[in-house]
């Protein structure tokens, strides 16, 4: 059994994909996820960040076993879900729900929104038909849609609305963990904030553990408690969000942070950047996988692969030189949000609060009733 405060833990998790299978000879493989150990605590928002192709989507899918791992295990609440039967896994899907990246393709175009949101409850035999309908209406309202929208089809909605339908769907079964694979990256920036806020509110309200996959550091900085940085199938750094941004320990993290636009003259001066594309994941470079792009690389980096080591301060980093380097993060005085933005967010919250306060109680999704067969 895992420690009680851990909700999801992965051990040496690996997933390989065969990219080319010749008639004779060895097949080519890409190691999309290559030995990942994660410890996600109950109730936190954990973010996984990295460039396109680093394996973060694969990792997200492994976490809820939408794909099977090649090696290693995923432990949810003391159960190794990579070893249980498909039938048992189906039962657990009630607890582990997923928000997909693309709100346009991830909703079945032939089903009404109501049917889509209700379906997880039907699959897990939650409530009576009438209770489920009521809950669909409440969930739709909760994500800022109207109960009447249940009779419409996904194509009648905008991207942001569809993503909120996706969130309502994910919440329908009353999950404990919500995994968002780039939940906002397909949306316009103005809509992103709206969806991020809904996610945060819902997390509080339902006591969710949120795992967010993203490449957008601004989103992560805003939402996450802890962040893991992924590069070519590996975690290179893991830290609480504030510390990661102000004092990165891995050169790759530093480079990522330096790419955040800072609205201030001279703020970016002298910051390290990286060039080039990430290396071919089919044939990753020897030693540290980041060394061909790392401005601090030395002989040891080319020869030896650094291990992710946990420091005394609950931060982990996989870099030979992390102790000697002093890397640049964001200056602590650059707030996550500008005062103007903060003001707008608080106005938004206040507006929401009054709107919800005005509503009769009971229109909220109530905690789930026990299963009724």
């Amino acid at each position, binding site marked *: 059994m895992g420690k009680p405060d851990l909700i999801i833990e992965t051990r040496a998790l690996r997933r390989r994909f065969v990219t080319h299978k010749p008639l004779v000879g060895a097949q080519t493989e890409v190691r999309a996820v290559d030995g990942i150990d994660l410890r996600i605590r109950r109730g936190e928002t954990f973010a996984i960040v990295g460039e396109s192709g680093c394996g973060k989507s694969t990792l997200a899918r492994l976490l809820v076993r939408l794909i099977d791992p090649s090696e290693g295990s995923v432990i949810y609440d003391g159960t190794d879900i990579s070893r249980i039967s498909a039938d048992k896994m189906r039962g657990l899907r*009630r607890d582990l729900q997923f928000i*997909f990246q693309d709100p346009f*393709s991830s909703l*079945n175009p*032939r089903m*009404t929104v109501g049917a889509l949101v209700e379906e997880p409850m039907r699959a897990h035999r939650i409530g009576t038909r009438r209770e489920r309908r009521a809950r669909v209406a409440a969930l739709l309202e909760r994500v800022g849609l109207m109960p009447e929208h249940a009779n419409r089809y996904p*194509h009648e909605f905008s991207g942001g609305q569809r993503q909120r339908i*996706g969130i309502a*769907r994910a919440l329908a*079964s009353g999950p404990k963990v919500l995994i968002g694979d780039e939940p906002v990256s397909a949306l316009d920036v103005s809509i992103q904030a709206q969806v991020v806020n809904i996610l945060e509110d819902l997390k509080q309200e339902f006591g969710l553990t949120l795992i967010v996959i993203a490449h957008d550091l601004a989103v992560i900085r805003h939402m996450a408690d802890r962040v893991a940085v992924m590069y070519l199938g590996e975690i290179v750094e893991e830290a609480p969000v504030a510390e990661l941004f102000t004092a990165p320990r891995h050169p790759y993290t530093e480079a990522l942070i330096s790419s955040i636009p800072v609205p201030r003259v001279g703020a970016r001066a002298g910051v390290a950047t990286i060039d080039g594309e990430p290396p071919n994941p089919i044939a990753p470079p020897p030693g540290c996988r980041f060394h061909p792009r790392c401005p601090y690389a030395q002989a040891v980096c080319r020869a030896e692969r650094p291990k992710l080591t946990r420091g005394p301060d609950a931060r982990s980093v996989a870099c030979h030189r992390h102790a000697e380097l002093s890397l640049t993060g964001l200056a602590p005085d650059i707030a996550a949000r500008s005062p103007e933005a903060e003001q707008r967010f608080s106005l938004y919250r206040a507006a929401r609060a009054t709107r919800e306060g005005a509503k009769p109680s009971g229109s909220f999704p109530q905690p789930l009733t026990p299963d009724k067969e």
Partner: protein
Amino acid sequence: MLGFLARRILIAIPTVILISVFVFTLQKLLPGDPVLAMAGEERDPEVLAFLREKYRLNDPLYMQYFHWIGGVLQGDLGISLRTRQPVLTLIGEKLPVTIQLAVMALIIAVFIGVPTGILSAYRKGTWIDWLANIVALSGLSIPNFWLGIMLILLVSVNLGWLPASGYAPLSEDPLRSIQTMIMPAFVLGTGLAATLMRHTRSAMLGVLKSDYVRTARAKGLNERVVILKHALRNALVPIVTVATLLFGELLAGAVLTEQIFTIPGFGKLVVDAVFNRDYAVVQGIVLCTAVAFIAMNILADAAYRILNPRMRDT
């Protein structure tokens, strides 16, 4: 939906007119003289001239067309130049036979083709997929006349289970009707099943990769629901399209199969009429088939709208 159907039927009218003109002129362009075919050994110029006059073959082409189409609109497709029977009667006799054969063949094709296609897509790359593809390829490659003869030999001659040939109208003796039709329908159906299976497979392969199928799995649905409810419903549009086209072809008659099983369907009527330059019959049949095809297409469009809510706004 009613408005949509009305609109589609209105749009179909010019198409039918165009087809009728086309059929009529094409007929006239064919070499050969119907009067000679009709007169047989008779070569007396006076007789020939009389016949030409009687069937208005001396009139200008457009007059002949208007005469014909005027009759058609009143339900008169003309008289067969050969048998002197009204064309409508001839078609009325054969059409129910052909429709019955077509429906049975299509049912068999759907029941074989669609499940095999689904299974083959779901188990892509496994031996099941290979087997299904080999069977489908065989279904496409085996000529209907050969399969028909082999079936008669096996089922009727050796096993004596079913009558080898003959026909009984469905309304008079349903059991015997189905008994005599099941083999020809099977012969036609297997060929179509192969086509349907290939299309079902490719449509399902596309849909099974889609994000919403992944979403369905992530919801914790069981595979049967994922496949039948989420995947198949979305894959149905191309399947319905192909099935409709196949059905339209079946309605035009299956000459060889009808011959082998001596079924008095459309196929034989068409061939006889063409060989005998029986203009009226050919025109009647082609017009009938064309209208049936258009009707099938309208039905298919209606089916799309039921299957795909995104098409309902248009």
